[in-house]
C-alpha cells in the first residue's frame, strides 16, 4: 500500500514527486512510456512565460507568476539550463500598439513586474534581425527559456534520491475506489494507494472520468516546430512573440536554453491524443509566420522538426485538486501553456494538499542536490583538464556536434533513473541532438548502452519497446 501514487512522469508528475518526497510518505510514480519526459513535456517551446497573457483570476495566471518566480532558484539548485532572456511581443502597425497597452494592464493585474512598451527604434536596437515592419513591442524582462527535459528529469531524480519509486513502461488501465483508498490497475500489476495524483497529460481526462462524476474533457491542440542549428542560435536574443490570438500565444522565434534557435508552434485544435505527426502545411505555416517576425530566417540551418500536444481542457483553465466527489484523488489536469512555467508552483500546492490530506510530516532528511553531473562542453579549458584528471573518460568525445564525452554518457546511464534508450541519452546529455542528429554518435552510443545495460545491441531502442535500431547481423538474410 502506497501513501500516494502519481500517474504520469511528465514535468508535472516529476515536480510533484519531488515536492511530495519532502514528506514521510511511501510514493510511487507510474509512467506508461519507457522514460520520463516522453510526451507533452518533450514537445514544447521551453519558455518560462512572464505571465501577462493569462486571464486575470485564473489558475493559469496565478501559477504562471509563481512558477516564473521560482524558476531561477530551482534551475540553479538542480543544474538545469535556464536563462532569463526576456521576451518581446512585437506589433506591425500603429493601431495594434494599443493592444500592447492592454497586455501591460493585464500583466500588472497578474502581478508581472518590469513590463514596458518599446518604440520601434529601441525594439530594433535590441533585436536587429526583426522584420523591418515592426513598429514597437512589449518587453517582459522576467520571461526566460529553460531546458524542458532537464526540468522534468532533474526533479524526477531528486524524487528517486528521496525514496520515490518510479515504475516505467507501466500503463494505468483502471482506477477504483477501495475501502481505504484506491486500486490502480496497470499492465504491470495492481497498485494500492491512499491517494492518487492524476498528472496524465492529454489522458488525464480519461483517468478523472473513470472515478469522478465531475467529467472533464481534454481536446489536445497540436503544435509543430522547427529547430535550427546552434550556428544561428543567436539570430535573436529575446523570445519573440507576435500578438496573442486568444487561443494561443502564436508562433514564436526564440533561442533555446541549450543555444539552438526554435520556431513554432502552430495550433491545430481537436487533435487525436496519439497523433504527433508533423505536416508539410503545418511546418510551412510555422516558417511563413516566423518570417513575419524576423528577417533572413536561415531555413537551410533547420536540423529537425517535431510536434507536441497541448493538454487543453474545454473550460480553458488548469484543473487542480480534488473533485468534490472523490476525496484523496487529486487532479493536475488541463496543464497546457503556461504549464511548463507553472509546473514547480503547481507541484508545491499539490504536494501540500496531499500531505494535509494524509496528515503527513516532513522528513527529517531530504536530499536537495542532484547526483553530480558535468556539461563538459560548457567548461573552460582548465576546468576540462581538472575533470579529465578525475576520470579519463572525459577525454573521449562521443558526440562531436555537442562535444559530449564518454564519461557523461556513462553518468547518464548510471545515475538515478538513468537512461536506457538513445532518446534518454539525448535528453540527459544532448548527445545526438546536434547538427548531424546522431549520424556519427548513435552507433557508438548503441554500443555503450549495450555494454552498460548488459543487453544485446539489437534490443537497444530509440525510446519505446519496438523502436529498435538494428534488426540483425550481416549475412542474417543470406
Amino acid at each position: 500500500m502506497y501513501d500516494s501514487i502519481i500517474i504520469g512522469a511528465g514535468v508535472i508528475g516529476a515536480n510533484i514527486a519531488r515536492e511530495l518526497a519532502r514528506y514521510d510518505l511511501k510514493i510511487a510514480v507510474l509512467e506508461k512510456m519507457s522514460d520520463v519526459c516522453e510526451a507533452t513535456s518533450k514537445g514544447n517551446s521551453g519558455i518560462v512565460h512572464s505571465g501577462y497573457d493569462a486571464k486575470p483570476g485564473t489558475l493559469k495566471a496565478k501559477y504562471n507568476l509563481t512558477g516564473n518566480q521560482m524558476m531561477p532558484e530551482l534551475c540553479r539548485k538542480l543544474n538545469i539550463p535556464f536563462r532569463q532572456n526576456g521576451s518581446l511581443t512585437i506589433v506591425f502597425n500603429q493601431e495594434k500598439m494599443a493592444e500592447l497597452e492592454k497586455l501591460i494592464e493585464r500583466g500588472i493585474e497578474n502581478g508581472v513586474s518590469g513590463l514596458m512598451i518599446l518604440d520601434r527604434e529601441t525594439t530594433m536596437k535590441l533585436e536587429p534581425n526583426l522584420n523591418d515592419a515592426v513598429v514597437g513591442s512589449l518587453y517582459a524582462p522576467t520571461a526566460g527559456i529553460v531546458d524542458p527535459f532537464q526540468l522534468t528529469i532533474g526533479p524526477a531524480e531528486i524524487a528517486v534520491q528521496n525514496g520515490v519509486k518510479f515504475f516505467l513502461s507501466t500503463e494505468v488501465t483502471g482506477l477504483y475506489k477501495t475501502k481505504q483508498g484506491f486500486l490502480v490497475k496497470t499492465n504491470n500489476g495492481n497498485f494500492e494507494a491512499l491517494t492518487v495524483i492524476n498528472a496524465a497529460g492529454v489522458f488525464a481526462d480519461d483517468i478523472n472520468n473513470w472515478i469522478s462524476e465531475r467529467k472533464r474533457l481534454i481536446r489536445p491542440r497540436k503544435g509543430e516546430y522547427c529547430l535550427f542549428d546552434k550556428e544561428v542560435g543567436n539570430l535573436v536574443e529575446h523570445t519573440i512573440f507576435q500578438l496573442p490570438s486568444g487561443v494561443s500565444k502564436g508562433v514564436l522565434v526564440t533561442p533555446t536554453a541549450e543555444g539552438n534557435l526554435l520556431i513554432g508552434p502552430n495550433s491545430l485544435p481537436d487533435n487525436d491524443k496519439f497523433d504527433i505527426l508533423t505536416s508539410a502545411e503545418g511546418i510551412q505555416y510555422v516558417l511563413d509566420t516566423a518570417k513575419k517576425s524576423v528577417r533572413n530566417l536561415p531555413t537551410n540551418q533547420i536540423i529537425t522538426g517535431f510536434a507536441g500536444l497541448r493538454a487543453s481542457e474545454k473550460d480553458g483553465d488548469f484543473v487542480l485538486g480534488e473533485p468534490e466527489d472523490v476525496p484523496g484523488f487529486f487532479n493536475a489536469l488541463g496543464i497546457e501553456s503556461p504549464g511548463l512555467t507553472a509546473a514547480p508552483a503547481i507541484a508545491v500546492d499539490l504536494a501540500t494538499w496531499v500531505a494535509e490530506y494524509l496528515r503527513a510530516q516532513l522528513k527529517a532528511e531530504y536530499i536537495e542536490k542532484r547526483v553530480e553531473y558535468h556539461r563538459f562542453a560548457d567548461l573552460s579549458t582548465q576546468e576540462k583538464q581538472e575533470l579529465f584528471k578525475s576520470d579519463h573518460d572525459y577525454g573521449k568525445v562521443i558526440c562531436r556536434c555537442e562535444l559530449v564525452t564518454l564519461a557523461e554518457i556513462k553518468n547518464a546511464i548510471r545515475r538515478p533513473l538513468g537512461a536506457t534508450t538513445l532518446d534518454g541519452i539525448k535528453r540527459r546529455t544532448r548527445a545526438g541532438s546536434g547538427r548531424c542528429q546522431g549520424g556519427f554518435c548513435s552507433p557508438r552510443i548503441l554500443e555503450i548502452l549495450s555494454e552498460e545495460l548488459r543487453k544485446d545491441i539489437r534490443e537497444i531502442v530509440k525510446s519505446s519497446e519496438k523502436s529498435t535500431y538494428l534488426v540483425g547481423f550481416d549475412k542474417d538474410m543470406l
Partner: protein
Amino acid sequence: MEYRDLVIIGAGPAGLAAAISAYEQGIRDILILERENFLGGILNQCVHNGFGLHTFHEELTGPEYASRYIDKLSDLKIEYMLETMVIDISEMRNVIAINEKRGVMEIQAGAIILAMGCRERPRGALNIPGSRPSGIYSAGTAQKFVNLDGYLPGREIVILGSGDIGLIMARRLTLEGVNVKMVLEILPYSSGLKRNIVQCLDDYDIPLKLSHTVTKIHGSERIEGVTVSQVDEDLMPIPGTETYVSCDALLLSVGLIPENELSRKANVTINPKTQGPIVNERLETSRPGIFACGNVLHVHDLVDYVSEEAALAGKNAADFIKNVSSEGLEVEIFAGDGVRYTVPNKVNPINVEKYLPVRFRVTKVFSQATVLVEFDNLPVHKKKKTIMTPGEMEQVFLPKSWFTERPFLRKITVRIEGDENA
C-alpha cells in the same frame, strides 16, 4: 603548451596526403590529430572498389586506397594521435585538443591544414512530415553499421536521394540479402556518378525514381512505411501521385556538408556556396597559415582529386613554414553563369607552377554546352562537353604561360555557354 611546425586536423585521405607531401617538402615536425581510432577516415567503411583509378591506375577498395598512404606515413614515421578531438583553433593557430591519454592539450602550430572532411545532411534538413520513429539512417551511418560493425539496419529498405553513398549502399545491402525497394531522387537527374547508377542500381534491377520524394513517414515506434510522391518542376509534390511503400528502414543520401565548425572558430571565411573555406591557389584560407583541402573545402566525387588537392595544401603549408614569400597581386576567380562555385577562389599568378587546376560544379544538367574561361572578360579557353551534371566535379587547367602573358590580369571567370536543354 607545445609547438609543432605543422598540425593536420583529420587523418582521412586529405590529411594523410597532406602530411606526406609536407614531409616530402622537408617538414619533419608534423602532428596529425584524428578523432576516430583508425587512420584513413571514411575510406575504411567504403569497402567497394573504384578508388585510385587516376592516382594508381588500378581499381582499389577504400581500405586499400587508404593503406597506400598509411604505409607511407608509417615509413616516414610521421606522428599522429588517434581518438583525439580538436575542440578549438584560434586565428593565431593555437590548437586545443583532447584525448583519453593526455586530456586537454594546447598546441601552437606553425601552420595548420584543415582536413576534417564532411558530414551527411540529416532528415531534419529536409522537413519530411510525419512521425519520428527509429529506422531512419543517413546512408553513411548505415554503411558504418554494415561494413564496420556488422549490423543490419533493416530488411526492407527505401533510399531517399541518389547521392553516391546512397547508390553504393543500395548495392551493398542487396548483397546482404536486404530488399532494397527503390531509390528516390527529387531532382530530374541523379546527383551520383553515372558509373554508380549503372553498377549499383541497374545491375541489380533496383528502380531509380527521378522526380520523386518521400512526403510522409509512417510508424510511431519503428518506421513502417513512407508515402512517395512525384514532384513538379518546382520540386513540389504533385497531388494524386502519392503511393504507399512499406519499409522497415529509410536511408537518406541527401547531400554532404563540409564540417567547418573548427574553421569558423578560427575566423576562417566560409564560401556559402561550398560551405567550405574561401581559399587562394595555395589552398590557404582567409587566415594566414591555415590551409584547407579535401571534403572540408568542397565535396569531391573522387578521392583521387582529394589526395591531389591535399598534396598541394601540404606543399604550400611547408612553404609557409619555411617562410617562402609570395608577392604580387591576387586575382579573383568568379563562378559565372551555370557554375555554382570554383575552388580556388583566388590565385596569385606568381605561385602557379606548371598549371593551375580550377575545380568547379555546374548548377544543373548541361548537354552539348561549352566551358568558357575568361581572363578579364576575354575568352582564353573553350571546351565543349557532351554532358555535365552537378553530381560530377569538373575541372579546367590554366597553364602558367597564360598568366605570364597577362601581367595586369585582375579577374578570371569560369562559365557555361550554350545548352541544348535550355
